[in-house]
């Protein structure tokens, strides 16, 4: 039994999906075949912005083995999108939706080819003749905001997909109180999700005549909804099933192959399969937003931040995807986890003809944090103050008022997390209460310089800004005198993070039975109700509360002698509210997770390579349901964020991705992993989390890049405000400042 008398939670239970995955027995979407299946290949745009004036499919259709070619005219309701249905499923003549013949980026799809084999489908794709009439394109968000810029869509006047304002206190007069002001322009790059499993799926008609799509996604019911919308079908006729999902990180929140598979299976009444190559995956699914943040922070000599001003411009690509939410989050995060009395922020999600951008672990927080923590570290330098001390003076705490004018939900642990991270890394508190750290030993080789850096952050758990938030679970208890079997229906997606194991642990705990008695039914719209997505660090929190609620109700029925005892429960957290358009006033979120990180790096000041040697990551997880998996999430997030910070450099030229391969888009390998990643797991219960648990999977991604940038500054004396810190950029920045041996 663990700490609080719990049977199954707080323990390193072996993952229920481990054996099948490590032995290769578990099928992923690409592994599944059905008799008589056809193959699909997609023809994408060859232009960044153009009108498709003609489409000649005759040569392709004449190719032996080609079964059917679908174009815009074949899509009943030719539009889709996660927050706004603003993207044609297929672009071309005959679209039933207005402007459906326009391609607005290279990731727009023009035709779907279905053939007897993958090779024939690919050949037919090449044979499709597309005639374009080019339209003026815009690739730079700041240019896109100018009045004379080409307009991408009537629904986004001025190319603004979303804009937010925060007006808090009186910034103008607050500058007068500031003894020190630091300014910076922070730029972050694209990031590719690079999950192990490129997009794949199988569409078919199930035994009940439903159009069924087997695919890897993050939210079965949302996929179903978008398929229903585009095909004009009722939900009873569309089914979405997820077999194993090979990673997601936000990259599977938007549609890839779902709608086209359903379209083809529905029309042909035969199974149709598609597997994207790595190249297709990189070229055609959305990326993390490049964001430029111009910001100015003022503090008193004593170290109190009195005013912050920021302008946040994110490149959304032509369609919304989740950009309004991501930039909404950046808008809040750009002032960091600090209580600042005077704040003015202007944030824009801007339409361009680049690849669409959307959800990616951290969801706007990493970009906001890069600017906020960059500014804090510069302030510390300008004030001659230890960075930990400066944070202690300004951190949000219980009862703090945010920039949006409302208090944080209860359970704020930022001060404790900062302190724990400092103590567990390089700092000690001296006798006078000040933080100090011994000088770092330096390598003998004068080209190698070591430095340390610190950054912290926080992020919402669950959906924000009034987006409806819910999770349904059903618990069914079977047996006679004792409960012999527990069936849990819970649709939350296992994207590799370990959610399903945690669901089983929580269900067994709530019912009070051994783990083996719990069986999970999941990932199937025909078998479960909506769970919401595997995103926003929300599943443990949301599904946990739903499972707990359903279990309590089922147990009550069980005690009343009902056999089997079945209960369904919908968990709804406290309501959130959207930003006020003029002031930003809102109750943006119902719960948060808190994180702080310290890093040690070694910079080769001649070659520009930044090696991350040590990362100490302190995370308040509320209650660690499965500590080993939390450690896995921390280590995974650290490595992914390390790639974001120093390696991953996706290059887009005129809207075209130049490096759509893992040989040219470099992600961390085992050789890049730090010598040490220390996971400091803190448990300050969230008052409304299940057993006090908070979400945590995004948080360890968030402060790493600014912590690394601070460590590079500590090592070299140079601030670099543009991510990633590639050798090329580091050398250029150091040479500009005259740092180097030669």
């Amino acid at each position, binding site marked *: 039994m663990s700490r609080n008398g719990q049977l199954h939670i707080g323990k390193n239970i072996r993952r229920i999906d481990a054996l099948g995955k490590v032995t290769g027995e578990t099928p992923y979407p690409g592994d599944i075949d059905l008799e008589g299946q056809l193959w699909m290949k997609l023809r994408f745009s060859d232009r960044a912005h153009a009108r498709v004036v003609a489409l000649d499919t005759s040569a392709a259709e004449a190719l032996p083995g080609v079964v059917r070619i679908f174009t815009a005219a074949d899509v009943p309701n030719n539009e889709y999108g996660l927050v706004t249905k603003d993207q044609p499923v297929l672009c071309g003549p005959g679209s039933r939706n207005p402007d459906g013949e326009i391609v607005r980026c290279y990731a727009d799809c023009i035709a779907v080819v279905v053939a007897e084999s993958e090779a024939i489908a690919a050949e037919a794709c090449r044979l499709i003749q597309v005639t374009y009439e080019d339209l003026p394109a815009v690739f730079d968000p700041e240019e896109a905001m100018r009045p004379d810029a080409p307009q991408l869509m009537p629904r986004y006047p001025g190319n603004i997909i979303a804009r937010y304002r925060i007006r808090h206190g009186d910034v103008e007069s607050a500058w007068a109180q500031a003894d020190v002001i630091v300014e910076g322009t922070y730029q972050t790059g694209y990031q590719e999700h690079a999950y192990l499993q490129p997009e794949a799926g199988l569409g078919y008609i199930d035994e009940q005549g439903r159009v069924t799509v087997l695919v890897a996604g993050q939210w079965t019911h949302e996929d179903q909804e978008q398929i229903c919308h585009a095909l004009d079908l009722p939900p009873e006729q569309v089914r979405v099933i997820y077999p194993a999902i090979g990673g997601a990180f936000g990259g599977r929140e938007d549609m890839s192959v779902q709608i086209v598979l359903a379209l083809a299976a529905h029309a042909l009444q035969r199974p149709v399969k598609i597997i994207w190559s790595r190249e297709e995956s990189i070229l055609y699914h959305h990326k993390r937003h490049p964001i430029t943040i111009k910001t100015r922070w003022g503090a008193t000599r004593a170290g109190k931040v009195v005013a912050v001003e920021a302008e946040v411009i994110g490149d959304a690509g032509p369609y919304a995807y989740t950009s309004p939410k991501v930039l909404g989050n950046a808008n809040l995060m750009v002032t960091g986890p600090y209580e600042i009395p005077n704040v003015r922020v202007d944030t824009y999600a801007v339409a361009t003809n680049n690849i669409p951008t959307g959800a990616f672990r951290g969801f706007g927080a990493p970009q906001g944090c890069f600017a906020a923590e960059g500014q804090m570290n510069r302030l510390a330098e300008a004030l001659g103050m230890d960075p930990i001390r400066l944070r202690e003076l300004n951190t949000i705490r219980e009862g703090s008022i945010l920039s949006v004018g409302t208090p944080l939900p209860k359970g704020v642990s930022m001060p404790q997390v900062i302190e724990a991270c400092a103590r567990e890394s390089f700092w000690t508190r001296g006798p006078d209460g000040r933080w100090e750290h011994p000088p770092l030993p330096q390598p003998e080789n004068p080209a190698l310089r070591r430095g340390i850096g610190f950054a912290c952050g926080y992020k919402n758990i669950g959906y924000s800004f009034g987006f409806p938030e819910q999770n349904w679970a059903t618990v069914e208890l079977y047996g006679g005198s004792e409960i012999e079997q527990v069936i849990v229906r819970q649709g939350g997606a296992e994207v590799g993070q370990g959610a399903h194991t945690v669901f089983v642990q929580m269900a067994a705990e709530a019912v009070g039975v051994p783990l083996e008695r719990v069986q999970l039914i999941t990932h199937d719209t025909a078998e479960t109700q909506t769970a919401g997505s595997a995103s926003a660090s929300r599943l443990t929190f949301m599904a946990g509360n739903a499972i707990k609620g359903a279990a309590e109700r089922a147990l009550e029925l069980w005690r009343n002698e009902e056999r089997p005892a079945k209960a369904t429960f919908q968990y709804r957290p406290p309501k959130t509210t959207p930003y006020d358009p003029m002031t930003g006033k809102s109750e943006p979120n119902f719960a948060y997770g808190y994180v702080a990180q310290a890093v040690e790096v070694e910079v080769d000041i001649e*070659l*520009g390579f930044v090696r991350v040697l040590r990362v100490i990551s302190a995370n308040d997880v509320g209650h660690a349901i499965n500590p080993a998996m939390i450690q896995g999430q921390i280590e995974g997030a650290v490595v992914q964020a390390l790639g974001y910070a120093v390696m991953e450099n996706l290059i887009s030229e005129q809207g075209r991705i*130049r490096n759509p391969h893992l*040989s*040219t888009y470099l992600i961390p390998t085992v050789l890049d992993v730090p010598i040490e990643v220390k996971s400091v797991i803190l448990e300050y219960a969230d008052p409304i989390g299940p057993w006090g648990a908070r979400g945590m999977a995004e948080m360890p991604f968030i402060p790493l890049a600014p912590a690394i940038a601070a460590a590079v500054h500590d090592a070299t004396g140079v601030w670099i405000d543009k991510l990633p810190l590639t050798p090329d950029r580091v050398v*250029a920045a150091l040479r500009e400042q005259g740092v180097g041996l*030669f």
Partner: protein
Amino acid sequence: MLPQQFDYVAPVTVEEAVQALSATPNARFLAGSFNLLIDIKTRRVAPPLLVDLRKIPALHGIERTASGLRIGSMTTLSQLLEDEEIRGTYVALAEALEKTGDPQIRNQDAIGGHLEYASPSSDISAALVALGASIDVTGPNGSRAIPADDFFTGLRQTALAPGELITAVTLPAGPARSAYEKLKHPAHLGAICGVAVALWLDGDQVARCRLAVTGATDHAQRLPAAEAALTGWPLVEPRIAEAAAHAADGLTGISDLQFSADYRLHMIGVLLRRALVHLRAA
């Protein structure tokens, strides 16, 4: 992707190999096959005939000659690395070999195939230029020796005439000291930039030197400005700094998506300095 069909022969003499190649347009010699098979699979080339050189005894082995060393073109990089004399006398070459790819690559790659491919990120090409090697070739019109200085002529371009077979690489007497410094590409392991240094000393003076770069430029070549800065002086810090500062003078850099030409050209000076400081300490 499956390769297109091709014919295959494995002659046992140089003459037969040269003849077989000349008889079929677009035929190719096959050495370790690493580059060639990739190019065939990715459809960059489609030779109707491969002439395998592995069965030709005359192309194998390392021989000591009156003036230095003769290396048969089918000698693998691993065999070179095991050779005592190369490790002792031609240190720049040994260091370049050590830093080439991984054991699997070195076990299979033949020096002749490596040189013909003339990859801009090849490590040993800089070492061979610095050490003053020459490349022996035999073609339909007879045999000749091409100095390494003149062998590499451009991006994947060499001075080989059509149909010529590399039979050997010869090395003159070794220099007093030599070294190779490399900045390894994280994805393909080849050189982002590599610098080879060979010094002939007269007391503590640099009587003569040969410096060569690879990776930063489209082909391996000498660094004349840096050579001039070192020649006739003792190997002291100001001379080293001067050589490094002028190392990239007059050179045109190459780039890929990760490493710009500016960066690579700057690395020539960085690596040259590292090599010279290391040699001074040695």
